């Protein structure tokens, strides 16, 4: 196995595109190194992108923020602007791993791990976040929602890697929240999860986006469920309808982490509770 710390995006792309064996991008390494240690993968080449300019930058852009691919959970959690604009995205990202892991883990890494249970992903999708991708054919932008295609598989092509994540602007009366269910209180993997992003006008919900995690082969965008909130004051009836719609949409499997029945029930509960939190946050801003 070879290790190269690339100095530029172009060098990283060339290395990744030129490798005939298994080439992997190393940012935080909190999934990659564990998989190597567990003998799950045997990469031929690791391309470390942390020395490339801009990878640790958080930059305001068109009212939103562009976040470098190597920005860790600890760094994002200390950024007042991002925390205020997209609290649900930050709280999802900060749920990953321990304090030590938070010092290294990245959102792009969590996204490219392509687990339906990744905690950073549902809130990014609910936020309509995009990623910027560098590759042999140049740079392109892509919706976060379109990156994972199946468990462990992404839509990235040979030689491509994510250089930044973009969180868009939003109104002052908007907010988001993310909740996951785990049997413990931390150091665990989501059995079911829900992200809710809302735009309020007074007491009325004007727009909503609901995304579910760990209840399907990829994250699920629950547009029908989100509609149950729009135009309502988010009263109990609306929240119950949201929960039911989420439970109905969920298509989980029975495995060592939970049963189908349990996951369908709990994902609805989480959506309802996340919606309440987002509602409170949006109210607090206006």
């Amino acid at each position: 196995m070879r290790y190269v710390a690339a100095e530029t995006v172009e060098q990283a792309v060339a290395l990744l595109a030129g490798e005939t064996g298994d080439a992997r991008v190393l940012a935080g390494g909190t999934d990659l190194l564990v998989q190597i240690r567990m003998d799950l993968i045997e990469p031929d080449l690791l391309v470390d992108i942390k020395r490339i300019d801009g990878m640790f930058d958080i930059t305001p852009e068109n009212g939103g923020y562009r976040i470098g691919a190597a920005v860790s959970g600890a760094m994002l959690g200390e950024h007042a602007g991002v925390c205020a604009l997209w609290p649900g995205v930050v709280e999802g990202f900060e749920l990953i791993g321990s304090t030590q892991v938070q010092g290294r883990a990245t959102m792009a890494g969590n996204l490219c791990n392509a687990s339906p249970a990744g905690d950073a992903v549902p809130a990014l999708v609910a936020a309509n976040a995009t990623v910027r991708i560098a590759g042999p054919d140049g740079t392109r932008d892509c919706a976060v929602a379109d990156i994972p295609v199946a468990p462990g598989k992404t839509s990235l092509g040979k030689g491509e890697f994510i250089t930044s994540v973009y969180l868009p602007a939003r109104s002052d009366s908007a907010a988001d929240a993310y909740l996951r269910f785990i049997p413990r209180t931390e150091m665990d993997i989501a059995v079911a999860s829900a992200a809710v992003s809302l735009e309020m006008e007074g007491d009325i919900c004007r727009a909503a986006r609901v995304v579910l995690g760990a209840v399907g082969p990829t994250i699920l965008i629950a547009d029908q469920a989100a509609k149950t909130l729009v135009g309502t004051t988010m009263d109990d009836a609306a929240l119950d309808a949201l929960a039911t719609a989420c439970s109905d949409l969920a298509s989980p499997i029975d495995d060592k982490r939970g049963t189908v029945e349990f996951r369908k029930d709990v994902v609805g509960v989480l959506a309802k509770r996340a919606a309440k939190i987002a509602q409170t946050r949006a109210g607090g801003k206006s």
Partner: protein
Amino acid sequence: MALDTDKREFKIVGTRPLRPDGIDKVTGRALYGADTTAPGMLVGRVLRSPHAHARIVSIDASAAEALQGVKAVITAADFTTANNSHSQAVLDNCMARGKAMYHGHGVAAVAAVSEAIAKQALKLIKVDYEILPHVTEIEDALKPDAPVLYPDKPAKRVPEGTPANVSHVTHFGHGDLEAGFAKADKIIERTFRTEATHQGYIEPHACLASVSPDGKGDLWCCTQGHYNVRALCADFMGMDASQLRVTASEIGGGFGGKTTVFIEPIALALSRKANKPVKLVMSREEVFKASGPTMSSVTDVKIGMTKDGRITAGYANLRYQCGAFPSGTIELGAMSAFAAYDLDAVKTDGLNVMTNRPREAAYRAPGAPTAVYPVESVVDELCQELGLDPLDVRLKNAARKGTKASYGPTFDDIGLVATLEAAKAHPHYSAPLGPNQARGVSCGFWFNFGGNTSVSLAVNVDGTVTLTEGNPDIGGSRASIGMMAAEELGIPFDKVRTLVADTASLGFNDVTDGSRVTFAVGLATIKAARDAIQKMCARVAKIWDIDPEAVVWEDGCVKPAGDNAGQYEPMSLAEIAAISVKTGGPIAGHHEVNADGAGVSFGVHLADVEVDPETGHTSVVRYTVFQDAGKAVHPAYVEGQMQGGAVQGIGWALNEEYIYGADGRLQNAGFLDYRIPVASDLPPIDTVILEIPNPGHPYGVRGVGETPIVPPLAALNNAVSRAIGVRMSALPMSPPRILKAIKG
């Protein structure tokens, strides 16, 4: 050795000095199993069965042996036959002989110059398996048509007609059950299930073995008992015990799981074959797959009670699953189940059944938690149904001095009643509960062991003392043993250094198990100190030229007594030591004993939980442990044992479990999906130590390490059942199970 009759004022015992291993452990200076190295050391790796049950038709290691950098490949054929069937099972568990008995069972091992080459070599070993039908669950293994693990080796001491996979059968009890149940106003009968759990020690098994061509061997390993490691490994290697020196490392947790061997014989055999030192360290995955889980269990319990809370009869039928090799743990379970109660009619029947799972290893009070859980749960349900206070009912039926225990003996001084009364009087028991919260109560019990012990105590010329004992320190024993020596010798604790000797440097010692060390090694230490004191008295009498009987040992000094009282200046240990080499030679004390009289230990736990009715998630919001320690030598360590046991029991009750697929493969061999509690899952665990002296120890000490893992299973079960209004009867009470119970 009986309790000292003079009512003494302790100066050191009962205080909380800084732990002697603290600095080493927090700075990284302490040497654990994987920290020992040797020049030219090779890396060992074990090839493990991917199948739950398979005949090994052939093993072709030629390609692995031909790989550059590979120095040895071994299989079961590289060991001798063990000298008894128990030891043979230990060996066969390390390395499969003829059949792979479970997913993860070792089949071959390599030693190579690097880890990468060792891993590559494993892939080159060709094993031809004939896959056999497997069985992993208790009820399946007991069926008449179940796959049989040892069709050619029927169990010897079981009655005719016993299912073929049963290795042990046991019965305890006394009285007329039928008459007892006839007197009851209410009888509850229920079946309880528990899943296998792992000891969950942080340090994986690790060792370094070095065998020389002339047959001498050295082994450094992480173990709870290096004399046992020596006995087993010398047997498997065909070596004399004197030629194998075993040194125990610092230990990163054992909890019973390090009372046997898993990789040590393999490392020795590889080293002998390669003629180089071999380091072998298990991965976490291997620890889960191939080292000591505890049993799973299915238990039917039937208990009768009168309206005013008197238990009229108790019956339990316990079935323990013990993995792929025979086990007798069921006896300890069948003995423990009703130990807390004074009953006229009680009976327990039990069996151990073998399955295609890793061989069961001891886990903290082996057999007791899974036996006490069903009994304490049914007692609680009876209390709930009859509207009685659970502590009052336990006090009404509590075993006490003179009670004929359900397993035979008559109890001497025991602390159960005092412990129950302390729980009842504690503010926790009357504290108000919030919504979705409830409180659970359970008693717990452990026998405590004594056993074979050697201690040597050297009085150094500078007035300090070096104490040599032979049991790895798994719970603060160096502190408590050193404190007992200092107490006896009248010197400050920091003048005593306690070391764990290797097997060549001290007489035999039993494994660190059964909560025996503070009791038995402490007892031997006190005797060794008294031996040294006797020698110092004789020495001083000689200096003063008076009769040895004319001096006494008082306050850490030899003083003239009787007619000579006041005629000479008392001499302290330091003064005697300073001139010892000129007055007759070095002074040392020693003691060797097979210690008896360990004294049983009882505990009572109070657990408050809050259950989220929409997700089934349980939070433990308050927890208090009450336990009789006899005499707490170092109370902080005693509290640590009480807290640690409670936490392991909470994990067992709520989330920990071995999960098998239909293919017989273990699905959660790692800490991500084998969920031990993390710090944020737990409230502070409050502790209340009671001291009802053990009549069998000079200071009244009882073992404290195991009892605290016994009550949490039922305490949590009772709390959760009361919180959700449905009686639970299976562990772990993971959120999907609780939510299902809530929804009906």
